[in-house]
Structures are given as C-alpha cells and as structure tokens.
C-alpha cells in the first residue's frame, strides 16, 4: 500500500513537471504563434494530401474531387495569409467554375468504365519523374532555406478589397482590361473549338 502511495506521489510530481515544462514552452513560444502554426500546418496538410490524391487515384472522378478539395483548402490558406478577397475568388473560381469545367469534361469524354480512367505510365517513367520533381523540390528548398528572409520588414496592410480595387482601377488598369479581353477571347475560342466543323458549314 505504501509503495503504491509513493508511486502515485512520484507520478504526480512527474506529471506536474511535464505540464510545467510544456506550459513554459508554450508561453516562451507565444500562444498566438502556436495557434497560427496549428492553423497553417492543418491547412497545408489538407492541401498536400488532396494534391497527392489528385495524382494517386486511379479513378479520375476521385482525382477531380481531390482537386476541388485542394482548391478550397488553398482558399482557406489565402484567408489565413490575410488575403480575404483572393480567398473568396479562389473558392468561387477554382472550387466552383474550374471544378465544374473539369467534371463536365470528364463526363463528356469518358463513356466506359471509370475505375481505371486515370492511367499512369510505367515504373521507369515514375522513377524518372520522381527524380526530376525531387530534384526540383530540393533545389527550391535549398534556395528558400539559404536566403536571408529574416530582415524583411512587415507592413501592416489595410483592407484587401479596398487596396485591390484602388490598384485595379488606377495603376493596373491596362492589365485589368487585357484580362477582360483575354477572358472574352477564351470564351469565344472555347465555344468555336468545341462546337466543331458541322456548325461552320450549316
């Protein structure tokens, strides 16, 4: 019995020590920083898992679903990076319009079995592609880690909608108009390409 009590005492002490240690750690790091990190890693994890799903699923409808999830998580990431308007645009344009275009394309093209509709290449091609993309990632990561980003100052930016509207209609008015013309051209071109030749002759 005594042994049990002393063991419980020791365990309580150890538990207290661990809680103290963790709390000290958290206070030293800063609780807002910890929350920020949790949100960032959560959203980033969802983005990367969904992107892996896009390239690993054999069924292309599942890939399209994962792509949509990845876009929506990216919209959340933009909101986390205090680009609220861009997050809304990402969710509407990518999570809505682009996802629907891709799913419509799949439905118009595939008519047979869907379970093997996303074929991959052979093992050699997978290894080569893995080497290429791993090389790309390692070089980018080395560049990011070795760059001295520490001394970049942080501006406190105002509301992103107001700032974007001011820029879009004053300094960047020409790119804005060019983007509008590009969208119009893409719409007309997509209709003409997909409609086919029969319509021309009629």
């Amino acid at each position, binding site marked *: 019995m005594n042994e049990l009590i002393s063991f419980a005492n020791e365990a309580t002490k150890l538990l207290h020590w661990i809680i103290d240690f963790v709390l000290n750690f958290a206070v030293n790091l800063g609780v807002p920083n910890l929350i920020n990190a949790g949100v960032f890693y959560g959203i980033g994890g969802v983005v990367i898992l969904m992107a892996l799903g896009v390239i690993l699923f054999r069924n292309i409808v599942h890939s399209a679903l994962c792509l949509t999830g990845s876009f929506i998580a990216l919209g959340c990431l933009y909101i986390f990076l205090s680009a609220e308007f861009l997050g809304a645009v990402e969710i509407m344009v990518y999570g809505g319009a*682009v996802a629907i275009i891709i799913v419509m*394309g799949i439905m118009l093209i595939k008519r047979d079995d869907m379970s093997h509709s996303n074929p991959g290449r052979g093992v050699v091609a997978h290894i080569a592609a893995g080497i290429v993309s791993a090389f790309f990632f390692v070089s980018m990561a080395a560049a990011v880690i070795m760059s001295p980003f520490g001394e*970049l100052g942080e*501006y406190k930016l105002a509301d992103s909608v107001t700032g974007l509207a001011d*820029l*879009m209609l004053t300094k960047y008015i020409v790119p804005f108009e060019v983007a509008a013309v590009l969208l119009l051209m893409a719409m007309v*071109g997509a209709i003409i390409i*997909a409609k086919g030749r029969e319509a021309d002759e009629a």
Partner: protein
Amino acid sequence: MIDLQKAFELVVNIGLPHCLLLSAVLFSIGLFGLLTRRSIIAVLMCVELMLNAVNINLVAFNRFGSMPDHAGQLMAIFGIVVAAAEVAIGMALAIKLYRERNTINVDELDELKG
C-alpha cells in the same frame, strides 16, 4: 535545450519560408503528376496544381515581404484569370481531340512525329 527551443521557434513562427516550402511541395507534386499521368484531363489538373503553387508564392510575398500595397495579390488574381482561360481552352481542345481521334491518351497523340 536552447537549440531545441530555437528549432521549435523556427517551426512554429510561420513566415515566408514556410509558405514558400508549401508552394514548392505543391509544385513538385504537380510536376510529378504532369510527367506520369497519361490522360489529358489529368495532365490539365496537374497544370492547375502548379499554377496554384505559383499563386501561393505571390500571396506569401505580399503578406510577409516588405510590400507597401496589394500588388502581389493583384498579380495572383491575374494569374487566376489566365488559369481559368487556360482550363476552358484546354478542355475544349480535349473534347475536340476525343471527337476526332476517339482517344485522350497523350501517348497516342503523336501525329507530328516524323
């Protein structure tokens, strides 16, 4: 102990490098898919992933770099416009190809090969 604390601070204080690394991971995944998928629609999806990775860079530099205005987010919006136009045209081309050749496998689309 000091080193551990410093390492945790590097991991926990979210800044520009974290966003750039996330973007690099996403771009590499898109590149891998682009090189290994054989369906033209899957290739288009991987191109979309890569374009999104680029947009993360623009937004992250706007947030953490020393930018006095929202020009980075504006460039990301122009990138989204171009990507939307690209996916519309690309899907129209894929549907047209399927009608003419009855295949969307990029390995079989080799008429220009000598």
